[in-house]
Structures are given as C-alpha cells and as structure tokens.
C-alpha cells in the first residue's frame, strides 16, 4: 500500500516537472504565474541636410521596457513604457497597458490602452528592432494621419480555414480630438489621437480584417477602418464634426531559393476624411474664417532582401532595404503638405533582434512645417530587443 501510494506521489511529482525545463530535480513546484521583463532600445547618429542647413546629432538612446504578466493560460497583462530624449528633455510615455483574456479558440478580449490594429505598421512593425529602417514612413508618429493607440476595449481572433487563415479585430476607443486651432493655429483641423479622457460622449469604432490566402502564411492583405461621429468637444462649435479613416495593408515574406534568400515586402495606404469645419486664422490682428476639404492620405511600400542562403557567413546576415513613402494633407490647411520620400538601407543582423542599420533618406516636400524643400538624411543606428 505504502509502496503503491509512494509510487503515485512520486509519479505525479515527476510528471509535474516534465514540462518545466528549468530544473527537473529540484523539489519545488513551477509557478502558474509568469513574469517577464523585456523590451528594446536603440541609439545612433543622424546627419541631416535640409535645404543646405546641416545638422548632426547622436540620437535615440531610447529605452522601452516591456512587462508581461501571465496569470494563467488565458489571462495576461502587458505594458510598455517608453523613455526617450527629445528637445533636450526626458520624455516618458505609456505606449500601452492592457489586459487580455482568451475567451475561446477564436476570440480574445483586450481592455486598456492598446496599439490599434489600424493597418499593420504601428501595431506590428514600428519597434526599432523590427522596423528595417531607422525612420518611420511619412504619415505616422508625430503629425501623423493614422492612429497608433487608443484606450478602450477590443475583441480579436483568428480562424484557420484549413490552410488560408483569417484574422479580425474590432474595437471601441475614446477616439481622437479635433485641434480647433485655438492653441496651435497652424494645426487647425488635425486630429489628435491622444485622448486619455474623452472630450465628448461619442466613441470611436474601428476594426481590421486580415486574410492570409496561402497555407504557407507568406501573404497577408488587410483592411482597416476607424470612425467617429464626433471629434470636437461637447458644446463647442466642432461638436458634430466626424471623421472616417481607412487603411489597406499588404505583406509578403518568403524564402525563395532561386534568389538565395528572403524577400520581404510590406505596404500600407491610409486615408483620412474629416468633416469640413470653419477655423479662424489671425493675420495682422484681423480674424479671418476659412475652411478646407479635410482629406489626407499617406502610403508606403518597402522591399527588403536577406541573402540567407549565401555560403558566406557575413553575407548571410546582411539585408538590403528600400522604401518609398508619400503624404498628402489637405489643400488650404495651414498644415498643407505634399511629400515624397525615398529611403535606402543596409542592415547587419547581429542576432534575430539586434541590428545595425545604415540608411540614406531623401524627402521632397511642398508646404509642411518648414515650408517644404528637400531634406536629406544619413543615419547609423543600432537597435536591440531584449
């Protein structure tokens, strides 16, 4: 009897440890709760030449720790802090902080501040160790026309269609605020996507649907929307101004033996349409009303190649990348701009998440903050994920 029980007890203990690779012989039980700190950082040197005006600076020193708390096989919390040095100051941001729960095989609910699945660039490709170039395409980030994160709830999931796969996400967030120009007249009519406390009762709704038509997951096409009926502050003149945004995204990644390596193509088109409204311009102390057709769009396409099948170890770790991007903001707005940008880079992958990037970028613009012209940049960056 004792022998029998002893055997069972021993057997159970042993079984428990079979899934734990840390140590199989130490007599402690593995914890169900798991905690991981990870994140990424990057630093580098930029040379800029804007219409003959030269600048050079060591930049970045960005540090973004990520905290992952896994409570069970279904429940998890994720948060990312972002530390950066900008305009001679330390900037701290809460990139995301959300809790997620797996409802079933095809559904997960998330709540909190999360990266928005509006296209793929912001949600999946922007971290410095993932982005193949040291810069972001036109239309994202500061003064961007596409939203990057929001506070709200989301339902997402994926279906295996027996080879092809389909994934979806739908969400509701506080939505953007309209910059009415009272603080920054030159930005009147822009959307400010940071809206920690909603300025009105109307929420933004959005979603993305992605299809991977082939069994090898090489290709994905996605369509996203983001819509809100009110972006202005309640009881203000802009209360009933609405906005509708959509995006298309495309990705193709495959190792092709005929060319000896990985081809990676990514692209996204964003379109923003905000209801027309009247803004005020002050010129020589005279207030003047003006309005414009508040439509913007932006696009980028990126192609990269890694000769992973080369016999030379150095060559294997190299990557060539080229990107075109374009931004058009409304004609008649103070922030009217038409820009075209080309970027070319050569990367060296030290590991799967540590890369040295050398890139050249040239941007031609008409209008915009600096009045337009040509800006050329040369960048040397080192990004590392950990």
């Amino acid at each position, binding site marked *: 009897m004792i022998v029998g029980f002893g055997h069972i007890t021993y057997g159970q203990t042993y079984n428990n440890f079979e*899934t*734990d*690779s*840390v140590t199989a012989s130490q007599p402690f039980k593995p914890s169900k709760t*798991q905690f*991981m700190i990870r994140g990424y950082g990057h630093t580098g040197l930029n040379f800029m030449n804007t219409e003959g005006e030269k600048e050079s600076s060591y930049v970045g020193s960005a540090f973004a720790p990520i905290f*992952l708390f*896994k409570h069970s*096989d279904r429940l*998890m919390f*994720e948060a990312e802090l972002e530390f950066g040095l900008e305009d001679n100051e330390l900037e701290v941001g809460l990139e995301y902080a959300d809790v*997620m729960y*797996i*409802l*079933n095989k*095809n*559904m997960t*609910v*998330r709540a909190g501040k999360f990266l928005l699945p509006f296209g793929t660039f912001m*949600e*999946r*490709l922007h971290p410095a*160790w*993932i982005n193949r170039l040291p810069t972001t395409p036109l239309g994202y980030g500061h003064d961007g026309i596409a939203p990057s994160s929001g506070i709200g*709830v989301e*339902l*997402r*999931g*994926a*279906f*295996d*269609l027996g080879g092809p*796969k389909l*994934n*979806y996400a*739908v969400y*509701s967030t506080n939505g953007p605020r309209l910059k009415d120009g009272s603080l920054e007249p030159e930005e009147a009519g822009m959307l400010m996507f940071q809206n920690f406390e909603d300025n009105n009762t109307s929420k933004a*709704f*959005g*979603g993305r649907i*992605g299809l991977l038509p082939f*069994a*090898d*997951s*090489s290709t994905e096409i996605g369509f996203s*929307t983001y*819509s*809100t*009926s009110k972006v202005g502050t309640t009881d203000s003149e802009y209360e009933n101004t*609405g*906005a*509708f945004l959509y995006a298309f995204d495309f*990705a193709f*990644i495959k190792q092709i033996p005929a060319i000896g390596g*990985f081809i990676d193509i990514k692209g996204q088109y964003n379109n923003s*349409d905000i*209801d027309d409204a009247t803004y005020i311009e002050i010129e020589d102390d005279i207030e003047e009303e003006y309005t414009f057709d508040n439509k913007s769009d932006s696009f980028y396409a990126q192609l990269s190649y890694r000769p992973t099948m080369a016999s030379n170890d150095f060559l294997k770790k190299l990557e060539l990348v080229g990107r075109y991007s374009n931004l058009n903001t409304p004609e008649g707005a103070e922030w009217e701009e038409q820009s075209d940008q080309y970027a070319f880079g050569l990367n060296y992958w030290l590991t*799967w*998440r540590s890369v040295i990037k050398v890139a050249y970028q040239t941007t031609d613009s008409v209008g915009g903050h600096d009045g337009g012209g040509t800006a050329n940049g040369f960048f040397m960056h080192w990004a590392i*994920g950990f």
Partner: protein
Amino acid sequence: MKTIHKIFTVAILLFISGGTIVGCSSTKNNYTAATDVQEEFKMEKSGAQMWGEACNRCHLAPSPADYNDTDWSTISLHMRVRANLAENEIAKIETFLKSAN
C-alpha cells in the same frame, strides 16, 4: 459620413456584444465542427515548418534555444494575441519550440 458612421457603430457594437456572449458561452462546446474533421484528413504541417513560416512574418524568427519553456509559454500567449495567430497554429509552434530548446 454620418450614415456610414451609424451603420458602422451599430455593426461593431453588435459584433462585440454578440461575440462576447457567444465567446463566454461556447468555451466548452462539444460538437465536432466540419473543420475539425477536415483537419484530421489533411496532411499535417509540422510545428517546425509553421515556426519557420509564421514567426518570420514581422521580425526574424527567434530560435528555440533563445528561451526556456516557461518563457516560451509567456511569449506564445503574447504572440498569439499580438500577431492574431490561429489557436492550432500557435499550439503546434509552442510545442515545437519547447521540444527543441
């Protein structure tokens, strides 16, 4: 714009609430879906192959040796949600990663 928004809002609200209700109630469904049967007869792809395909889509794929089993469980859950991967896909990849580290 207003009508687009209204239709859109209602559609998404229905989807979220409907989805959540279905999601909460059908955690333990015991019927066999057609796709499950299909799955059995389909040529099974290995976890290793799926890892090579799926984990290279956004960043370079990490090698199984990069993390221990505990970390792989956390990462698999994180990637399942962030990359919106299908459940059977991530389950197979996770098994492969844990067996090959």
